[in-house]
């Protein structure tokens, strides 16, 4: 990796007008003492105006780095962005544009909500000052108008008596209330794209329900597009129309929420869904994905999921699979797996049957004692 950020990077053609965000071959690597971490390694997806897309993955999959790269919030170095990587937003390439131009977009047309509202709000500024600062900067309005607008956005996210709340500081509020403030701040300049990075992970389940319902209503009301980043498959299923599943820096599956969650075709997605504890699985063992996520310094040579994959064979250790159309799917569902290539044809049915069986695990399941030991994966 010797690619560096260059202002003269050759650009491709802009995407169609109805595409709000298009990420092309995003590569974000980090140079650290021990070597190079390919946190995001060739990720491409697009999001239409007013649409919702979820990026789901476990810790270390690269989902947050994807968002931070779009926002250009990473320090370069240690981050290195691929020279061929492009991010098109609203007809403009934003990954290579001068940072001053990006600052005009960030916070205005693209707003972000972070996971931990306490650390992402400034503790020494009142709520009103924090929202107002952004409004005045982007909308070039005076103090009074900024204040009115701040109150309006707080009201929009359901904060009672916003006139009083704008004088308060973050520590005076509960976690749920702070997350509402974050959403209000993000919405204050009427963004075209809202990026929410694990917006409810730090919250209790009843407060999570409040915030998710709020996000849904606001997204519909304002017509902004939503890029939701989460590790929670339940949140994804509830909130978005399209899903991207990431594993070890790559997209392993993408498609509509119904396709990906109900008929997953990448073994990693299949395994994740099989391992969710549900009422139907009571009395049976949970399926597990054996082993652990590979270290970014020692990624498997070909398919990155191969060491943990129950369906892998020789080819998976020799040739890295491409993200390609899922065999037999009429929709635009993509999976990164040799099972969907020509050579995988003979194994595909068996794998899909195995998955369907695992999803049906119920009360009557008889356990094979031999399985117990192998499932205690020790890697």
């Amino acid at each position, binding site marked *: 990796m010797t690619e560096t950020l260059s202002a003269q990077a050759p650009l491709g053609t802009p995407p169609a007008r109805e595409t709000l965000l298009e990420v092309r071959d995003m590569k974000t690597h980090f140079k650290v003492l021990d070597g190079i971490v390919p946190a995001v390694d060739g990720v491409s997806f697009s999001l239409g105006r007013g649409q919702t897309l979820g990026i789901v993955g476990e810790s270390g999959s690269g989902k947050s780095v994807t968002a931070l790269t779009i926002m250009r919030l990473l320090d370069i170095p240690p981050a290195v962005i691929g020279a061929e990587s492009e991010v098109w937003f609203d007809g403009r390439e934003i990954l290579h544009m001068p940072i001053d131009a990006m600052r005009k977009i960030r916070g205005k047309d693209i707003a972000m909500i972070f996971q931990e509202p306490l650390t992402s709000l400034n503790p020494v500024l009142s709520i009103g000052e924090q929202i107002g600062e952004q409004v005045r900067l982007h909308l070039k309005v005076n103090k009074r108008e900024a204040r009115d607008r701040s109150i309006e956005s707080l009201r929009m996210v359901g904060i009672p008596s916003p006139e009083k709340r704008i004088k308060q500081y973050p520590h005076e509020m509960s976690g749920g209330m702070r997350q509402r403030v974050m959403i209000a701040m993000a919405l204050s300049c009427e963004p075209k794209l809202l990026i929410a990075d694990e917006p409810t992970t730090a919250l209790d389940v009843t407060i999570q329900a409040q915030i998710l*319902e709020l996000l849904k209503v606001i997204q519909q009301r304002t017509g902004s597009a939503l890029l939701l980043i989460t590790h929670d498959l339940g949140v994804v*299923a509830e909130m978005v129309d399209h899903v991207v599943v990431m594993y070890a820096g790559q997209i392993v599956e993408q498609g509509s929420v119904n396709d990906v969650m109900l008929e997953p075709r990448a073994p990693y997605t299949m395994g994740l869904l099989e391992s969710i504890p549900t009422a139907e699985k009571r009395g049976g063992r949970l399926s597990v994905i054996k082993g*652990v996520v590979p270290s970014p310094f020692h990624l498997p040579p070909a398919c990155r999921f191969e060491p943990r994959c129950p369906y892998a064979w020789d080819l998976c250790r020799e040739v890295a699979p491409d993200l390609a159309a899922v065999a037999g799917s009429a929709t635009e569902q993509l999976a990164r797996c040799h099972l969907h290539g020509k050579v995988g044809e003979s194994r595909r049915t068996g794998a899909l049957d195995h998955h369907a069986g695992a999803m049906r695990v119920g009360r009557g399941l008889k356990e094979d004692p031999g399985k117990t030991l192998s499932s205690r994966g020790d890697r």
Partner: protein
Amino acid sequence: MIAQTPPSASSGGEPLLQVRGLKKHFPIHGGILKRQVATVYAVDGVDFEVYPGEIFSLVGESGCGKTTLGRSILRLTEPTAGTVRFDGEDVIGMSADELRPLRRQMQIIFQDPFGSLNPRMPISDIIGEGLLAQGLTDRKARDKKVEDALETVGLRREYTRRYPHEFSGGQRQRIGVARALALEPKFIVCDEPVSALDVSIQSQVLNLLLDLRRDFNLTYLFISHNLSVIQYFSDRVGVMYLGKIVEVGTVEDLYRNARHPYTIALLSAIPDADPRRRQKRLVLKGDVPSPVAPPPGCRFNTRCWLREQLGKPERCTTEEPELRALSSGHRVACHFEDSITDSTVADTVAAQSVIDTAAAI
């Protein structure tokens, strides 16, 4: 295959653990003289029992007192009032010396696999510490037990000389399990054992805990905020809110026929991984009140949707509801539990405004 019938929850056997009127109040000191200015009512009168071989779960949001309750039972924090009987013996009245042999039978697995293992200790010392405290001074015998415990949780015997930073989160949690297991306990408090783990690792640890229960005849008190995990994992469940149990019953009782407005809202809040089951949720208003000043009467009254719908009856704010039995083993603390029907819930969901759910100042 796990035994799905709770061994003696309703069949009237002797409980392994019996908790009666347990309270833990933390004083808050303030002012120049550091006098006590307030009290946190973390656990405020809790009764339940755990039967041999069963998994009893406590569920609730942060600050409801579930962790404090688990620690008070083991006397890791001294309870303010109440009794805890383990295997017929009074745990609270014991002196430290009397307690030590009992500690061997009651162990705990902590939530945070990073914070709960001493980074300066090799695994052999982390797991062996409890054995040493129990009087096993022979190093060789101790190391043998440590290695056995490691093997039981699916780790290699050679790992004893390694340090915690060399392990992943899932492996550390296995080490935490091995530490508890090394003493051959009868009963383990599992305090959010999988909350810090990724989904694919979470199922490995849950399977391990179920295997161990079967192989070693263990009884678990399982503490979690994750309702899906609890539904899959437990035999009976107690729902906590602000230091009290508001509903207790078998998993079937609770998940099919919840009778407390709080339980109903909690269950409604779980996001479902099946996009076909998208539905409008019952969203509770506001936040959990502070345990320093719990609301008078029913502690849930400030957020209760049922109370709103019934036209705010006075009884909810004046009289604290008792935990009373509905059927064998299913108990609920609500004055108006019998007015809950399918349509009351549906009406509330239809009428609610999801924007205005923040608490008023």
